[in-house]
């Protein structure tokens, strides 16, 4: 299992892992199931849309009726190859579908069509950023195409189990990492990276609630310096990053307890229970199926040539790492800011639309997008795509800060009004008479009035109590109803208050 990537790299194992595991080195590998965003299923023409009435999106092929045959969806192949290109992975020039045989009521054919010996995506890698800012390369073992099973519904029927086969045949890309991850935090960083990537290249909607992006974690511990891997457990079907972190942390502690009490970890599949924040045994290795994999005789091998690969490469969007680098270089953004903006394609696209014509500085755009806009999205539980203020509207607002028409403070109030659909920044500025006062004469008369009204404070200031400047700024700003240009106001006050 060990690869060149699996030994601790020079960036080392994070401090948290040490703290969590004490005498033990934590070794984690993830298997991620990303549901591919095709409109029809991987081997049939039925729709993949989520949330339909049970069994309304299952055709004869999905039901596994006698005599039906699978036909591969080209889109699924395209998406898998795009993933390979995005992760610098080998592309299986000849990949083969295999049958994974086991009985379960929501598996209509009694086998799942997957890939075994010859997957469509081979070795690749992604880079993650650790908590201390260091970078670490995580190896991808492989990624293969397969069909999803249906769903068993145990609660709705008295003493019976209902089967919904709408999900049966939904295309999945199973992405398997090397055991290169050394802490729960690293595992989450890696999962987030893959999540961002699949959304970036448009092959998965990444919706974890709907099960479009699911993680299984293989967790084991070994003594520091030990070469061979310890016995692992597989924690299944964790459907949020937070749960992933907690499930792994629980499992690390549990295994450490087992090992420290002198017992052996049992190789088994465990299920994470979010309500009780624990993992529970699901089935042990002894109970595991012999899946009797063999090449599916109903499907031909998938042959992929250079021309096809190059056509997909040409159509690939700029990837997050390259984009972040461009942001650092062209926009002089920090590593952190560039990382946040590019972690999601919609965010990066939004950001670039704001700064596109050069009237809004990248730093200002970043502060407002990552700060004000995201705060409001979180508050209202909205996606950026559903934001009431789109990129051009935000740019319209920020341009008015840049040209000193309004202050930042006024702009925040305006953003609230724009959020509520009350109009564009310029309309609101006009209607509310919010244009910043930059006329020196107007400001001077306001300042004069403040000085006149507060002779005591003026005397104290002139006697050396510099801190009182803020008092005068506040008074004058209030007099201007917040519209005074703060920098200008400061400067004028200083002049007028000079002893």
């Amino acid at each position: 299992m060990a690869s060149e990537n699996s030994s601790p790299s020079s960036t080392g194992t994070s401090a948290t892992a040490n703290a969590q595991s004490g005498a033990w080195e934590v070794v984690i590998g993830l298997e991620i199931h990303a549901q591919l965003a095709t409109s029809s299923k991987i081997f049939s023409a039925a729709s993949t849309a989520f949330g339909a009435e049970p069994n309304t999106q299952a055709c004869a092929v999905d039901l596994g009726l006698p005599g039906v045959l699978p036909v591969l969806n080209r889109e699924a192949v395209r998406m898998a190859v795009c993933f390979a290109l995005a992760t610098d992975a080998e592309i299986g020039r000849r990949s083969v579908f295999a049958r994974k045989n086991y009985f379960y009521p929501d598996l209509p054919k009694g086998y799942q069509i997957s890939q075994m010996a010859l997957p469509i995506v081979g070795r690749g890698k992604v880079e993650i950023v650790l908590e201390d800012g260091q970078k670490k390369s995580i190896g991808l073992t492989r990624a293969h195409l397969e069909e999803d099973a249906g769903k068993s519904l145990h609660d709705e029927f008295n003493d019976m189990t209902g089967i919904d086969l709408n999900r049966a045949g939904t295309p999945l890309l199973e992405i398997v990492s090397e055991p290169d991850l050394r802490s729960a935090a690293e595992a989450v960083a890696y999962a987030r990276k893959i999540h961002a990537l699949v959304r970036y290249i448009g092959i998965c909607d990444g919706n974890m609630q709907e099960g479009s992006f699911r993680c299984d974690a293989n967790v084991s511990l070994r003594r520091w310096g030990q070469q061979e891997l310890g016995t692992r457990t597989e924690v299944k079907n964790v459907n949020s990053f937070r749960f992933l972190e907690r499930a792994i942390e629980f499992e690390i502690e549990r295994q450490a307890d087992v090992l420290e009490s002198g017992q052996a970890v049992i190789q088994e599949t465990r299920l994470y229970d979010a309500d009780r924040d624990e993992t529970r045994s699901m089935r042990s290795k002894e109970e595991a199926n012999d899946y009797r994999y063999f090449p599916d005789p109903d499907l031909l091998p998938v042959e992929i040539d250079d021309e096809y690969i190059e056509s997909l490469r040409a159509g690939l969007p700029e990837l997050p790492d390259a984009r972040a680098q461009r942001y650092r270089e062209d926009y002089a953004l920090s590593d952190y800011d560039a990382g946040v903006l590019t972690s999601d394609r919609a965010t990066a696209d939004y950001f670039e639309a704001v700064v596109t014509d050069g009237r809004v500085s990248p730093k200002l755009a970043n502060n407002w997008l990552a700060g004000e806009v995201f705060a409001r999205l979180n508050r209202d539980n909205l996606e950026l795509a559903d934001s009431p203020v789109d990129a051009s509207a935000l740019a319209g607002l920020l341009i008015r800060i840049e040209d000193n028409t309004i202050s930042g403070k006024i702009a925040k109030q305006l953003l609230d009004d724009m959020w509520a659909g009350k109009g564009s920044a310029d309309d609101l500025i006009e209607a509310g008479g919010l244009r910043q006062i930059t006329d020196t004469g107007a400001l001077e008369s306001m300042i004069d009035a403040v000085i006149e009204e507060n002779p005591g404070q003026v005397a104290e200031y002139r006697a050396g109590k510099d801190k009182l400047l803020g008092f005068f700024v506040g008074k004058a700003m209030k007099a201007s109803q917040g519209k005074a240009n703060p920098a200008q106001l400061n400067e004028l006050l200083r002049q007028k208050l000079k002893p």
Partner: protein
Amino acid sequence: MHDKNLREVAEHLDSRSISSEELTRLFLQRIDTHDAALNSMITVCAESAIQQAQVADKAIAEAGGTLSVNKPLLGVPIVHKDIFCTKGVKTSCGSRMLDNFVSPYDATVVEKLADAGTVMLGKANMDEFAMGSSNENSYFGAVGNPWDQNRVPGGSSGGSAAAVAARFCPAATGTDTGGSIRQPAAFCGLTGIKPTYGRISRYGMIAFASSLDQAGPMARSAEDCAIMLESMAGFDPRDSTSVDRPVENYRQQLVDAEQPNALQGLRIGLPEEYFAEGLDPAIATAVESAVKELEALGAVVKSVSLPNQHLCVPAYYVVAPAECSSNLSRFDGVRFGHRCESPVDLEDLYKRSRGEGFGREVKRRILIGTYALSAGYYDAYYLKAQKVRQLISDDFQQAFSEVDVIAGPATPTTAFEKNSKTDDPVSMYLNDLYTISANLAGLPSISLPCALADGLPVGLQLTANYFDESRLLKTAHSFQLQTDWHTQCPPDYV
């Protein structure tokens, strides 16, 4: 009229000397009279058949015939093997498992033949899930051979063969995984062709062994098979293993080739390995004289070798059960088919539904196949069998570098007596000794009657290279123009 072959029936329909409805009623009457004893049919669709015939008659009247509009099957009554899904009609596959299964869709073959205007008289009996060489493995009972009721018609397309031989219909569909068209054709005195793998869509044909299964026609002559094949063949986007290649005008090619020295220059190979232990001497003699007949028509005969012939049966009985063990997993009592009474839990549901739904031979093959695919045995069995399969294909390619057609017996014996091999699976399996290799290699292969031995038909098998169906049909047709073995009728069904 019932003794007319398909071409003759088509001519009568064309000239309207008989209507499709009259013909359909005639055949239904024959089935009604004779099939109680023969048991060739699982389902007879009298009502819908008559309706289809009436529709056909209307179409014939409108078109002013059938042949002039190139619809030679318009109004022709046929029978489908019960392995093909037929919409609204029970599709049992010869199994208790599917005794209650009414398919919601038509197989591509059924659809194509319906589009060609055929009338479906009903669904033919077969070995359960096409596993068998005697039709004794049917949940719906054994089928008699029209030439001798006490003998088997062969299998697994035994019902189709018996129905055509008993003159219940001029043609029927069959499927061939290891000889299931050719062996019953040989036992019942018919002509049956298994085309190249991929020539006919498998969509809607209940899978036994997906990499070996291939549908084909069973009729009384090569010409009739050509007419049927032309309608059955073709690329189907619903079957990834079907081949996107134009369908030839098989029948026209036969007519064009009708001349005294039709086989001039045809190189026929006789594999040494076929004429060895296990072959009934009467069959060896019959095949040798048939080959002489082909020589007289201009063919050149030479000896060839298929050195891995002895590995065909062992390789087949790993590959076919392995695929079947997986293909039959969907019959679990959950969504369709047989479900046991009052299951106590999931495991009980599976065990009893499958235990009750499948017969002995099907269970035997599921067990063999499951074993062959198991961890630790896969390489030794399945992988090795696939390698042997390649060797067998290579043997054929070597032979086809020297000859155009390989000739030999279709079966080692004539039709055997019922119950004579049921307790000895291996001796039953050896009945497919000559037919299996064409499935393993995916080659087209035809069986045609070439003699009667002790009153029982003998089959001559011809195998050609990929997509060379027309050469097989031409060779068989030339032989049939000179001989009358294919026109012989079982005495009880004249």
